[in-house]
């Protein structure tokens, strides 16, 4: 008999995914530093990759490599004996996309630092508001 409690405990991978997504969202929303926000974005992305890899995992299954796959002898392949490789292949693309996103985000953060001299979001906002009357004065 499968009660609610055993169901919750048996899916511990998904609970870890929930916790990691919460950590990533918290870092993206509540942290003021831009590099901390980028770290939170990366934690969020790896949490989603963990979710997809957890979908493909099976208990008692082995790696998706068929023994004697190229031999002449034909034999039955049971799908329950092998881990589902489709989510793995999708997530390879996601990892490459995540490192490209990270590079663009860090380049933008570096440009912001060279322009404003700080990485803190509130200080940047103060400097933007402080710059505004100067621009109006110089243009008008």
């Amino acid at each position, binding site marked *: 008999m499968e009660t609610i409690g055993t169901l919750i405990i048996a899916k*511990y*991978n998904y609970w*870890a995914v929930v*916790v*990691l997504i919460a*950590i*990533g969202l*918290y*870092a993206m929303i509540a*942290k*003021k*530093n831009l*590099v*901390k926000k980028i*770290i*939170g974005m*990366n*934690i969020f992305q*790896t949490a989603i*990759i*963990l979710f997809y*890899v*957890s979908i*493909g*995992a099976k*208990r008692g*299954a*082995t*790696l*998706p490599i068929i023994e004697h796959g190229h031999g002449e002898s034909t034999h039955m392949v049971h799908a329950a004996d092998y*881990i589902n490789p489709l*989510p*793995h*292949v999708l*997530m*390879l693309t996601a*990892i*490459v996309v*995540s*490192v490209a996103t*990270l*590079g663009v985000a*860090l380049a933008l*953060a*570096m440009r912001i*630092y060279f322009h404003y001299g*700080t*990485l*803190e979001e509130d200080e940047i906002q103060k400097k933007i508001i402080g710059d505004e009357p100067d621009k109006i004065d110089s243009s008008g």
Partner: protein
Amino acid sequence: MIWQLDLIILLMVVICGIAAISIRDLLGAAIMFGAYSFMMCLLWSIMGAVDVSFTEASVGAGVSTVFFVAAVFRTTRRTRD
């Protein structure tokens, strides 16, 4: 999948993630993020996704940490949160 090992490494992943966003030093945060990526790579190799695991080990724990350290050295280590 060995579930004892899986649980221990899941716990270490969560601890490394919390440490990476709560350290008040950006270089330390970058190093903790590298540790987080490596723990994630161990987790995936336990779950049987070896291709995802070695891509994460080279790209996540290697290139991402180098990016973070390079960006921190060209800007500043100071952070208020």
